[in-house]
C-alpha cells in the first residue's frame, strides 16, 4: 500500500512539473472550470441576497388581512373603517398596545441609480401611533418621519440603488413632494430595507387612495387563535377580506421569485458544469494520448495501475482547484458588497450580494467534484490499457 502511495506521489510530482509542456490544453480546462466556478458563486451570492431579503420567515402569530380579491398587499384596498371592525374579532392580543396596524401599501415609479430607468418601489404608510409590529428597525441617518407631515424615510438598501436619495432630499410621490428625513435599516437587512415608509394619512391622498388602506397586520394572542380569527372575519357581513398567516403570505411571495430567478440560474450553472466537465475530460484524454508511451513505460518498469490512474485523477483535481478558485475569487471580487435591484413582479427588491466563505468553498468543492468526474474516464481507460500496446503506439 505504502509503495502505491509513494509511487503515486512521485508520479504526481512529475505530472505537475510537466504541466507547462501541456499548457494550452490545461489552460482550456482551467478556463472552463473558472467560468463554472464564477457563475456558481454569482448564483449563490444572489441566493444569499435573497435569503437576506426574506430573512424573517414571518411569524405564526401575526395575521395579515387583505381585500378578498387580493393575494398581495400592493393590490389590496380596504376601507379605513375595516380597522375598527377588526378590533372586535376574537383571538387578538389585547394586552399589547398596537396589536393591530393598518397599513397602506402602494407603489411609486422612481429612477434607479444604474441607468435612470423607472422601477416600481413599494411605499408603506403607517396609521397613527401603531408604527409597526416590533420590527427590528433602527435609523441609520436622520430621524423618523413625523405623523401629519409630508415626510418619509427610506430603507438603506433601496436608498443605495435609487438615484438621488439622501437625508434632506425630496421625492415626488403622487401629487405631493415628500421630504426624506431619514434612512433606516433593518436588523440583518431584510425586505423592509427595500421600502419607503411614511404616514398613511399623508400618503393616501397624495397617491390617490384617500380613505383607503391595504392591509391590516394583527398580532394574535397565540398562533392557535388564527383559525377562529380568520373565520370570524371572513364571515363578517360587509367585510370582504382574506386572512393569511404572515408566514404563509411571505412564503407565497418567495415562491414567485424563486421560479423567476433561481431555477433558470441553477439550470444555466448545471449546463455550464457539464460543458466544463466535458472540456476537462477532453484535456485529460489528450494528455494521456500524448503521454501514452511515457505512461506505458511507467507501467512496464513497475508502477502499479492504481498509482497511474490516481495520478491522472490528481492532475484533474489540480486543474479543477486552480480553475474553481480563480473563478470563485474573480466573481467574489466583482460581486461582494454590490447591491442588485430586482423585482418580485410587483415592487422592487434591493438585494445585497455578499459572498460568504462557505459559498465560495461550496463552489470550489462543486468544481472539484466536476473535475473528479472528468478525470475518472481517462483514469479508468489508463488503468486498463495493455502495456505492450501502449509502448508500440507512436
Amino acid at each position, binding site marked *: 500500500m505504502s509503495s502505491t502511495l509513494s509511487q503515486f506521489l512521485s508520479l504526481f510530482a512529475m505530472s505537475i512539473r510537466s504541466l507547462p509542456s501541456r499548457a*494550452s*490544453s490545461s*489552460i*482550456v480546462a482551467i*478556463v*472552463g472550470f473558472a*467560468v463554472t466556478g*464564477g*457563475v456558481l458563486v454569482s448564483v449563490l451570492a444572489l441566493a444569499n441576497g435573497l435569503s437576506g431579503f426574506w430573512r424573517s420567515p414571518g411569524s405564526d402569530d401575526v395575521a395579515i388581512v387583505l381585500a378578498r*380579491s387580493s393575494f398581495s398587499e*400592493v*393590490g389590496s*384596498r380596504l376601507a379605513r373603517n375595516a380597522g375598527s371592525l377588526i378590533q372586535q374579532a376574537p383571538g387578538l392580543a389585547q394586552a399589547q398596545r398596537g396589536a393591530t396596524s393598518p397599513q397602506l401599501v*402602494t*407603489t411609486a*415609479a422612481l429612477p434607479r441609480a*444604474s*441607468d435612470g*430607468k*423607472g*422601477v*416600481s418601489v413599494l411605499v408603506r404608510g403607517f396609521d397613527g401611533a401603531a408604527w409597526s409590529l416590533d420590527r427590528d428597525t433602527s435609523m441609520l441617518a436622520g430621524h423618523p418621519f413625523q405623523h401629519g407631515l409630508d415626510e418619509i424615510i427610506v430603507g438603506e438598501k433601496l436608498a443605495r440603488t435609487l438615484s438621488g436619495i439622501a437625508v434632506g432630499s425630496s421625492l415626488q410621490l*403622487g*401629487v405631493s413632494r415628500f421630504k426624506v428625513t431619514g434612512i433606516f435599516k433593518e436588523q440583518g437587512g431584510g425586505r423592509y430595507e427595500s421600502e419607503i415608509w411614511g404616514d398613511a394619512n399623508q400618503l393616501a391622498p397624495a*397617491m*390617490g*387612495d*384617500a380613505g*383607503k388602506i391595504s392591509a391590516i397586520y394583527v398580532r394574535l394572542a397565540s398562533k392557535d387563535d388564527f383559525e377562529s380569527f380568520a373565520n370570524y372575519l371572513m364571515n363578517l357581513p360587509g367585510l370582504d377580506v382574506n386572512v393569511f398567516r404572515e408566514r404563509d403570505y411571505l412564503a407565497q411571495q418567495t415562491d414567485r421569485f424563486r*421560479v*423567476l*430567478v433561481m431555477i*433558470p440560474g441553477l439550470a*444555466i450553472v448545471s*449546463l*455550464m458544469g*457539464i*460543458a*466544463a466537465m*466535458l*472540456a476537462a*475530460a*477532453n*484535456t485529460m*484524454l*489528450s494528455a494521456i*494520448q500524448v503521454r501514452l508511451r511515457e505512461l506505458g513505460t511507467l507501467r512496464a518498469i513497475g508502477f502499479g495501475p492504481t498509482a497511474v490512474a490516481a495520478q491522472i485523477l490528481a492532475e484533474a483535481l489540480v486543474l479543477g482547484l486552480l480553475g474553481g478558485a480563480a473563478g470563485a475569487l474573480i466573481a467574489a471580487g466583482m460581486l461582494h458588497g454590490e447591491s*442588485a*435591484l*430586482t*423585482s418580485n*413582479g*410587483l415592487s*422592487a427588491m434591493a438585494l445585497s450580494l455578499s459572498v460568504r466563505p462557505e459559498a465560495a468553498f461550496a463552489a470550489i468543492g462543486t468544481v472539484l467534484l466536476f473535475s473528479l468526474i472528468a478525470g475518472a474516464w481517462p483514469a479508468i481507460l489508463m488503468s486498463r490499457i495493455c502495456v505492450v500496446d501502449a509502448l508500440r503506439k507512436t
Partner: protein
Amino acid sequence: MGYMELVASGLRFRKSQIFVTFACVSIAFLLLGVLISAREAFTASGNVASSYRLRSQGSSAVTAPIPISYAQKIASVPGVKSVLYANAEPAAYQDDPRHLLLQAASASELFGMFPELTVPDEQRKAFLGDKQSLLVGPDTLKRYGWKLGQAVTLQTNVLDTTGAASWVFHVDAVYHSDDPKVPGDLAFVHYTYFNDARVGNKDVAIGFVTYINAPDQATRIASTIDQLFATSSPRLITQPENQAMENQLTQFGDFSKITIVVAGLVFVSMLLLSHNVWHERVQMRRVELATMKALGFQPGSVLALIITEAMTLTLAAATCGLATAIVLVTVLRPLVENFLPGFHFPLRGIALSAAVAIVFAVLSSVLPAYRASRLPFRLSSCD
C-alpha cells in the same frame, strides 16, 4: 472519393475527442437558443400595431377603478384615433380550477384596436351583434372543450341585480394570431353586458387603450393624456404599450447584459476548447497531411479541408444544440407563459445562430488550418 468523404474520414480520427467537442459545442448552442428565446420575452414586441397603442391605468393601485367618462376626454386629444375601456373580471367554468380572465371591453373599438387578432368576418359580425357574446382564443376553446356558438355559464365575482354571480355567454367568435407574443387564452366580452346588469361599480374601468395615428407621437400623446387628468382623482399613468411591457420586464434586472455576459463566457471558453482540439488534431495528423501535400494537394486546399472539417462538426453540433433548445422552449412555454409572455424561439434566431456557428468554426480552426497548410513535405527528425 468525394470531397465530403475526405472530410468525414478526417472526422473519424480519434472519435472520443470529436464526441466531446461535439457535446461541448452543442451545449453552448443549447444555452444560446434558450437565451435568445428568453430575450424575446424581455424585449418590446415587434408587433407593428403595438407601437400605435398607449395603455393607461390609475396612478396608484393596480386595480383602481376609473370612470369610463375619461375615455371621451382621451379621445379629444389630437392624434388619437380611438379609445377602448376595459375591466378585467376573473371567471370560472364549472368545476375547472383554472381561471379565465374576462376582458370586458367596449366592443365597438375592439377589432380596430387589436388588428393582430384575426377573426373571420361572419364571427366578427356575430360578436358585435350580440351583447352576450364571448370572443376567445384557441387555447381557451380547447381547454374547456367549447364549440363555436355554444352557450356557456361562467361564475364571476360580479353580482347582478338578482344577487347571482353566474353569467351566460355565447361563444360567438374565436381569434387566431400569427404573432407568437399574442397569448392563446385571451377572452373578451362586451363591457355593456356586465355594466347594464351589475350592482355597484358601474361605469368604471381599470384601464384604457388608446390607438394613435402616428407611432412617433406616442410619448407626446401619453404625457398630454396624463396632464389632462393631473388634477382629477384618480390620475392616469399612460405609457406606449411596448414601452410599458419592456419597463415591466426590466424591473427584474438588466437581462440583456446578463445574457451577453453568460453567452460570452460560454462561447469564449468553448472557442478555446475547439481551437485547442483542432490544434492538437493537426499536430497528430501531420504525417497524413504532409503526405497529402506530397501527393499534390495545394496549401490552400489543405487549409480548406481543415476549416471544412471544423465547419461540419460545428454546424452539426449547433443544429443538435438548437434543436434541443427549441424542443425545450416549446415544452417549457406553457409553464412559464404567465411569467414570461412571448417566451418562444424566433425564426431569425436560426439566422443568428447560423452566423455564430460559422464565425465560431472559422475562428476555432483558422490558425491550426494555416499551420497545416504550411507543413513541410519532409518532417524534420525532431518532429
